[in-house]
Each structure stands twice: as structure tokens, then as C-alpha cells.
């Protein structure tokens, strides 16, 4: 570990040398600056923000809106009002599904969902398709997880209302060419929802450049606390969409007969908002900007390369997805012959190597590529070579521990 790394790791109080945290795709650890920003908010500025007239409430409102502005800049949205705070990426997709989907997707329309999707970007569309009698079509990948724009071109029709696709798969780590997908979707008059849960924390994502209609992501995967997520939506769309959750704050006026609703984004933020969470996300974005996304990408690429190469040397171990480490973005999912992933993760966990085992909330993908359960190691910029070494050592012993000799 060099000095830079020593200091970097000091920013993350939970990290120490007794274990290697390699489950970053599930959730990230939090730097002290994020933990303290939230603490500070509750110690100095906590109040219910909206409509409050006294200083504390004004302060809470300002912090909340400052967080929104920082998200807007981070993903290069064109308006602050295009940033809706949600609980997590899952809720963001559901918001679009219930509000846009149930209103603007009609009987006979088609919804295209890629087979790479996390359940959170698949089940809401299964539900909309069922409720609205729309046709759900899957965009399949090849055995390496590749989906080309031409594959979409073949599947899409004039009846396609929406395309839901992830930018980075949480199982194989590959990036989809979202900009091309968006272009094709728009040519056919469809909107496109991009799942940025695994991309926004790990690469520069520019919604204006990608020209996606919706982008969803979770704060907790990008250094922020749990309980805060984001929906980006183009303002023309958000404006015409009906509310999703109904309640306090999202109204303009209410009578016993009905209600009119607030402007965007407030229309979509019913009930008391999570200022503490938004403040945490703001601090997380500051942290990322401070160390710079370029540095994050560079570190994660180096670590991925090292891990990929060393894992490739291990007998009986198969890495799923691309054979090019550059197509893994910190995510290395693998099988070990004869060894069930739960046993693998358990044995690794006992050796202080934290990885995830199971279906990674992507059962249809895993079934499609023929690995119903797998083990996944996922990297963040605060990992170090020592973490990978620990992983490799532990992996080498797995088969022996399970009684397979070697």
C-alpha cells in the first residue's frame, strides 16, 4: 500500500487490514465525510424542509435543494427539476413503471427489457405488461453477455413504447452502448430507461450526452447512506406523468373531491423527504469529485486487471463474461468446479474475504448464460492489491476445504 492508499483507506472508518471488502456492487462503504455530513445535518440544521418559515427549516430546505443541484451537475442534467429523490434505484424504476408505464403504455404496446437486467429493472415491467396487456419482449445477450445495438434494431418495432436496459450489468460487469440504444429507441418513438445503479458510481455518466429519458441509481452504491436514490427524468416526460405516491407536500391544493399537484420534482416526492439522506448523497458526490472520477476509473481498472489476471491462473475457476478485463468494470463473477457458490462465499468469508454468492438478483440472466448460481467479487477504488491477494489466497484453498483434494 502506498501513501495515497493508506490515506484513502483512512477516509473509510470501516476498512481495516483484517478483511477485504469485495462486495462493492451490493453496497459501498462510506467515507467519514459522508457520515459526518449527515451527523452534522442532524446536529445543526434538522427540520421538516418544505413550507417552513423559520431558520432551521429554511436551512434544511437549502441543504436538500443543494443536494439536488449537486446530483444535477454530477449527471449533467439540464434542469434541477429533473432530479427526483427516491429511496433507491428499485423505487425509481417502480415510480416510472407505475406513473409512466401505467399511463402511457397501452394494450398491444411492447416493452423491451434486456435479459441482463437486475430484477429491479425487470419485475416492474413484467407487472406493467401484465396489467396493461402489453407485450414484454426480451433483448437477449450472447454467451459473453454482449448485446449489440443491432440486436435492438432487430427487436424494436413501432409498437415499442419503452426500452429498459442497464448501463453496466451487476453480474458480468459489461457496459452497454446506451447512447446507441437511446438513438434507436427514439427513432421508433420509444422512451428509454437506463439503469445506472452500477455505472453512475464507477464512470462519468452524462444524461445529456446519452440522451436517455430516465436514469435510475442508488446512493448507497456510491458512498452515500442507504435510503436515498435518484430518478432522473426528462422534464417534458416528468411533467406529463401523473403522481406515483400521494400525500403531503406533492400537492398544489386539495379538496374532498380531488387534488391538483405540485410542479416537478415535488410532485413525485410525497411525504416528508429524506433530507439527511440527500445531504449524505451530496457529500458522497463531493467526495467523488474531490478524488475525481478519472482517478476512480483508473484505480478500479488497475485492480480489475490484477484480479482478473490472477484469478485466471487458478485451476478449476471460470470467470463469467468477457475475456477482456476491461469489460468487467470491477465485477468478476466466477464458478469453481464442484463447489457451490454459497460454500465458496462462506469459506471466503471465514478468511476475511467478503464476496457475494447467489443469483445476484438476476435469475433470468444467470439461467440464460447457464450459471444459475455464482460467486461475485466486486471492486471499488478504495480496494488495494492486498485485498486481491487475500482473495486469491482464499480462492486457492476452497476446493481443498470442501474435500476435493485440489
Amino acid at each position, binding site marked *: 500500500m502506498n501513501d495515497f492508499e493508506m490515506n484513502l483507506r483512512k477516509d473509510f472508518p470501516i476498512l481495516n487490514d483484517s478483511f477485504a471488502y469485495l462486495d462493492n456492487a451490493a453496497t459501498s462503504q462510506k467515507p467519514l465525510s459522508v457520515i459526518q455530513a449527515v451527523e452534522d445535518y442532524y446536529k445543526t440544521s434538522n427540520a421538516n424542509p*418544505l*413550507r*417552513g*418559515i423559520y431558520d432551521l*427549516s*429554511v436551512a434544511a*430546505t*437549502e441543504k436538500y*435543494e443543494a443536494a439536488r*443541484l449537486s446530483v*444535477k451537475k454530477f449527471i449533467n442534467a439540464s*434542469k*434541477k*427539476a429533473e432530479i427526483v429523490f427516491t429511496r433507491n434505484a428499485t423505487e425509481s424504476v417502480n415510480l416510472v413503471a407505475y406513473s409512466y408505464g401505467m399511463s402511457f403504455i397501452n394494450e398491444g404496446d411492447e416493452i423491451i427489457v434486456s435479459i441482463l437486467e437486475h430484477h429491479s429493472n425487470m419485475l416492474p415491467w413484467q407487472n406493467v405488461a401484465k396489467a396493461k396487456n402489453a407485450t414484454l419482449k426480451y433483448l437477449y445477450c450472447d454467451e459473453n453477455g454482449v448485446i449489440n445495438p443491432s440486436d435492438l434494431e432487430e427487436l424494436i418495432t413501432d409498437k415499442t413504447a419503452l426500452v429498459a436496459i442497464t448501463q453496466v450489468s451487476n453480474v458480468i460487469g459489461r457496459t452497454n452502448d446506451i447512447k446507441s440504444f437511446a438513438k434507436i429507441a427514439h427513432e421508433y418513438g420509444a422512451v428509454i430507461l437506463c439503469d445506472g445503479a452500477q455505472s453512475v458510481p464507477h464512470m462519468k455518466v452524462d444524461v445529456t450526452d446519452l440522451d436517455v429519458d430516465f436514469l435510475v441509481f442508488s446512493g448507497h452504491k456510491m458512498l452515500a447512506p442507504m435510503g436515498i436514490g435518484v430518478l432522473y427524468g426528462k422534464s417534458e416526460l416528468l411533467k406529463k406523468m401523473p403522481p406515483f405516491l400521494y400525500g403531503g407536500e406533492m*400537492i*398544489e*391544493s386539495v379538496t374532498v373531491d380531488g387534488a*391538483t399537484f*405540485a*410542479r416537478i420534482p415535488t410532485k413525485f416526492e410525497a411525504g416528508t423527504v429524506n433530507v439527511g439522506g440527500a445531504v449524505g448523497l451530496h457529500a458522497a458526490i463531493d467526495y467523488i469529485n474531490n478524488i475525481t472520477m478519472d482517478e476512480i476509473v483508473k484505480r478500479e481498472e488497475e485492480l480489475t486487471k490484477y484480479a482478473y489476471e490472477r484469478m485466471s491462473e487458478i485451476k478449476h475457476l471460470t470467470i463469467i463474461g468477457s475475456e477482456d478485463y476491461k469489460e468487467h468494470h470491477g465485477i468478476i463473477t466466477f464458478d469453481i468446479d464442484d463447489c457451490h457458490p454459497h460454500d465458496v462465499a462462506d469459506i471466503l468469508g471465514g478468511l476475511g474475504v467478503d464476496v457475494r454468492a447467489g443469483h445476484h438478483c438476476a435469475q433470468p440472466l444467470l439461467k440464460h448464460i447457464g450459471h444459475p448460481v455464482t460467486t461475485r467479487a466486486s471492486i471499488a477504488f478504495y480496494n488495494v492489491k492486498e485485498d486481491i491477494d487475500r482473495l486469491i489466497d482464499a480462492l486457492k484453498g476452497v476446493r481443498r476445504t470442501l474435500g476435493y483434494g485440489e
Partner: protein
Amino acid sequence: MENKTIYTEIITDHNVDPYHKHEIEGANLILEGVNPSCGDDITLSLKVEDDVVVDGAYQGVGCAISQASADIMLDLVIGKTKDEALRLSDLFLNMIRSEITEEELEELEEAGLLKDIAHNPSRTKCAVLGWRTLREMFGVEFEYEEE
């Protein structure tokens, strides 16, 4: 106890004893402006001849800030041309956004006393209501502040 208050005598006077809260004869532009969330409600009546605001008045209910702001606005715009009135409304909105120079502030005369409302987003809507309605009467949409 010291009150860091926007409620100076000039403002409260405009609220308690408004000059322009009445009906006028011959108004040719009438528009109601509402802040639905807080109940401020103002109906602005203008008599415009040859693009000059020759007379104006308002009726309404709402907080002191919304009422006084409308009253002060009418003080300012009566006798001005439409373009001058719109320019003043630009200045007022800029002031609310804290984007105003000292000289411009002077042009706003008493309306400049509402400058500090900018610190309290939940009150700016009240201060802006009359001005927003005026702009809409002249066909200029009120731009929602977006960054």
C-alpha cells in the same frame, strides 16, 4: 429580543392601509394570481392606454408580504409604459434571485425593501405574486427558477 424583520413600517403600512386596494373604473386588463399552497390570492386590474398603465388597483387576501408587495408594485408601475413596467418586474425577480446591482435596486424604490425575502424561499412566492401576475397580464410567462 430583536427581530431581524422584513416587517418594517413601510411594508406594514402598505398592508394595513393600502393605496391601491380597491376597484377601478375602466380596467381593461384583469387577472387573478394565486399561490395555491399558501392561499395568497390577488386580482390585479389595470387600465392600459397606448401601452401606458394609466391606472391600476388590486383586490385580494393573503399575507402582509403578498399584499404590500402588490401595493408597492402598483405605486411603481402606474404611469409607466408596459415596457418600463416589465423591466421593473425583471429587476424585482432579479432581486429575489439576489442578482441585482445597487443602482438597479434603487430603481425599485420601496419594492427594494423586500430584498431580504430572498433568504426565505417559502416567502419569495408571496413577494413575487403581484409581479408574476403583472407579467402574465402582459403575456410574459413567469420563468420558474431552474438551475
